Structures are given as structure tokens and as C-alpha cells.
């Protein structure tokens, strides 16, 4: 039996407070945004039971992409297509544009939302490593006692708990992703390995962000790995090896070895754990050599 057999009503509010009120009710709600992951989950009978199907796609303001002080704020309902073409994202977060460009297909990018990709919390989610590398922070909204909309901020690095599981509390909705504006000298790279360029779930993915000073030394190094652990992770030991150093071929080999050591992949239909570690090693080295010569 499909879990949605217990869905008793459908709501499509246009206001955030209404959406949060529906989410806070006992029985909970299944949140629908782009639907590109929810529909296959329903068809496979993998949906958690809830009494309400809550379509948030009509909630005003949640698809906006704008600057707020020294942050780029991307609404949770921004589609992957919007990320790929938006002038602000292209200027301040080209890493995310690259990931959006490698995401599924045109049809899916036109519907799928950034918030949905994050809340599905797949270890192979395409936008997760880039957002980790860019120090993303999430805006999580809930309804306060007086009916006021409350927002808390959570670093993305603390959001994921396991495959499909996040620290989103009951009654909370992801409303925005905040990215600090890039420093001068920022270098980023994205790499996704799969069997074909389009419509492929990543076998592994890598996202790199750092600042290079005038002497060529790297600072604030971020190296995020996707699809090699229950959650997307930062390769902290690999990052530490790069911090304050000038990249060369020997260092790239050392860092690649460290990154492969930090991955804890599994065997599955897409690849064996051994192959995934090899990919992390080889693609990290290749990516770093490319950074060294850029």
C-alpha cells in the first residue's frame, strides 16, 4: 500500500505562515515543491505517512535570489534552471552554476528546487558538495507561539544526519540558502563522475573552493566530497594539507591520497567502494593539478 493512502487533504498556500501552520499540525505534512523526487518516492511506496500533502510551490517570495548585505540569498524554491542562469549566482557562486549544469536534464532542472535537493539529503545530491564548499548557511522557518514566523540559521555542514535524514525539526521549513560573498582571489572547481553526462546520479562528486593570495598560497581551503559517505563531507585532513601552501604536483598527490583516505564509501549499483576511493584519489589529483596551473 502506498503511504499516501492516508493523505486526507491537499493544501497549496500562498503565504509562509499558512504553510508553517499546516506543517505544525499533528499528523504532519508531506512537503511538495518541484516534485521530481517526491513523485518517484510515492510511486515506489517509500513515502513517510502524513495526513496532508502540502504544496509549497505557490508560497510567495521563496524563489527569490538576491543580495542581503555580504550574503547571496537563494530562496529554497529557486529551480536548478534558475541557479544555472541567474546573473547573481553566476557572478558570486559559479561553482553552484557548474553543479546545476551537471544536474539531471533540462526538464528536471526546470522543475527541481534547491530546497528539495537539500531536504532529500541524498549523499549523492549534486548541489550538496558545492554548497558545503561555499560555507552555505540555511534559513529554517517555523511558527512561533503568537503565530509569528521565526527563523533560525544552521550551517549546512550541521544539517545532514544520514541518507534522507536532516536536522530539520518538526514544523520547520527550509526557506533559504545563504552564501557569503566570495573573497578576492577565490578559486572553485566542481567535478562529477558518472557513466554519462546527463541524468546520472553521481558515482562521486568533488567541490573545491579556496582563496589564493598574491604569493600563490591557498587559504580557507574547502574540499567537499559527495556520494562517498552517508552524508556529504568535508575532507578536513586534505584541506589542512593545502592550507597556506603553494600547490605543486607532489602536494596534489599527497592531498589526493588524504582525501581518498577520508572517504568511507559503500558498494552499490553504481560502483564499488574500492572504485569510489580510486575516483576520489584520481579526480582530486587531476582537479588540484588544474588549480595549480590556472
Amino acid at each position: 500500500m502506498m503511504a499516501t493512502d492516508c493523505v486526507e487533504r491537499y493544501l497549496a498556500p500562498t503565504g509562509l505562515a499558512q504553510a508553517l501552520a499546516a506543517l505544525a499540525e499533528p499528523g504532519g505534512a508531506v512537503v511538495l515543491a518541484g516534485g521530481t523526487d517526491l513523485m518517484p518516492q510515492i510511486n515506489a511506496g517509500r513515502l513517510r505517512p502524513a495526513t496532508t500533502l502540502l504544496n509549497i510551490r505557490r508560497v510567495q517570495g521563496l524563489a527569490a535570489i538576491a543580495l542581503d548585505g555580504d550574503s547571496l540569498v537563494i530562496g529554497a524554491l529557486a529551480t536548478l534552471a534558475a541557479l544555472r542562469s541567474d546573473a547573481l549566482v553566476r557572478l558570486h557562486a559559479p561553482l553552484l552554476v557548474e553543479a546545476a549544469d551537471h544536474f539531471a536534464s533540462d526538464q528536471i532542472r526546470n522543475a527541481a528546487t534547491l530546497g528539495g535537493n537539500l531536504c532529500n539529503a541524498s549523499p549523492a545530491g549534486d548541489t550538496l558538495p558545492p554548497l558545503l564548499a561555499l560555507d552555505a548557511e540555511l534559513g529554517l522557518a517555523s511558527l512561533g507561539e503568537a503565530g509569528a514566523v521565526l527563523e533560525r540559521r544552521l550551517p549546512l555542514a550541521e544539517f545532514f544526519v544520514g541518507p534522507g535524514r536532516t536536522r530539520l525539526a518538526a514544523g520547520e521549513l527550509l526557506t533559504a540558502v545563504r552564501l557569503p560573498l566570495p573573497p578576492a582571489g577565490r578559486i572553485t572547481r566542481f567535478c562529477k563522475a558518472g557513466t554519462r553526462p546527463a541524468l546520472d546520479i553521481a558515482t562521486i562528486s568533488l567541490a573545491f573552493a579556496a582563496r589564493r593570495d598574491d604569493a600563490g598560497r591557498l587559504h580557507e581551503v574547502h574540499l567537499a566530497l559527495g556520494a562517498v559517505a552517508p552524508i556529504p563531507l568535508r575532507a578536513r585532513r586534505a584541506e589542512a594539507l593545502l592550507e597556506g601552501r603553494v600547490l605543486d604536483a607532489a602536494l596534489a598527490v599527497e592531498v589526493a591520497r588524504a582525501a581518498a583516505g577520508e572517504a568511507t564509501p559503500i558498494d552499490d549499483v553504481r560502483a564499488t567502494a574500492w572504485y569510489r576511493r580510486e575516483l576520489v584519489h584520481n579526480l582530486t589529483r587531476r582537479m588540484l593539478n588544474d588549480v595549480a596551473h590556472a
Partner: protein
Amino acid sequence: MSLTHEIHFRLNGVMQRAAVGLQMSALQMLREVIGLAGTKYGCGEGECGACTIIVDGASVNACLLFAVDCDGRELTTIEGLARNAQTEALRKAFVAHGAVQCGFCTPGMVVQATHLLSQQANPDATAAKRAIEGNLCRCTGYLKIVEAIVDAGGQAQATEDRR
């Protein structure tokens, strides 16, 4: 228990009303509730593109779209494009290049190509290939389809230039 929800939307230019199940896809609604069978069911999970339709100006997989979410929106299917003068060059190019073999992927290909041409009037082969990444064809090897799309863009451009 199967709950239904009444929605109103514009389909190929005509206002439409439908009672749809909460977990029904737009594809199922088009084919089984409304009776427009031009949009094809291939994989049912967004991999093949046979069910591509245009919603509010953007192409999407009808199999991944909730029918209830069509409420208040504007849908265009292959049936709508068949009567559309703007897609004439594209339809003729598909025929001229032999871009149709078994025909099952064709509605999705034509709808997706229409979306591409609305974004980029005169695409090259690379742009055409990227645009149909989400559309599988098991007969043609894609070459004729890509040529047809590029040719359609070029013809529309030539017509525009003559004006």
C-alpha cells in the same frame, strides 16, 4: 480511499477543469482523465523525456508533475503544438530529416525542441544535444533529430531575415 481535488488550468489555449487524485501525475491526467494520448508514458520516472510538456513556458516531465500542481497554470502538449504555426518549421524539419522512426520519443523530442527554440532561436548542434539530454531515442541514434532541430532554428532565422 482515493481523494480527488478539482483543478482549473489552461490546456493548449483552452480553459480546462479536471478532478484529479492527490498522487496522480499530470501525465496520467492528460492521458486517462482528459484523453490526450500524444504525450507518451515511457519510464514514469523522468529518465526518458517521452512525456515532456511545457508548463508556464518551461519544459517538464509530465510524469514527475503532480496533477494537482497544474491548478492555475498553462500547459502545452504535443497536440497544442500540432496546431501551432510557430512549430511548423520544426515539424517539417523532423519529416525532412527522417528524424522519426518508431515515433514513440517524437512528441517529447518536438516539445523539448520547441522549448529550446523559445530560449535560443538558432541553436548549434551542441546546444541541441544538450537540450535533448533528457530525451531518449532508441531508433535514430539522435543524429537526424539533432540535424532537424538545428535546421528548424536556421529556417526560422532565414524567414525572420527575409522579413
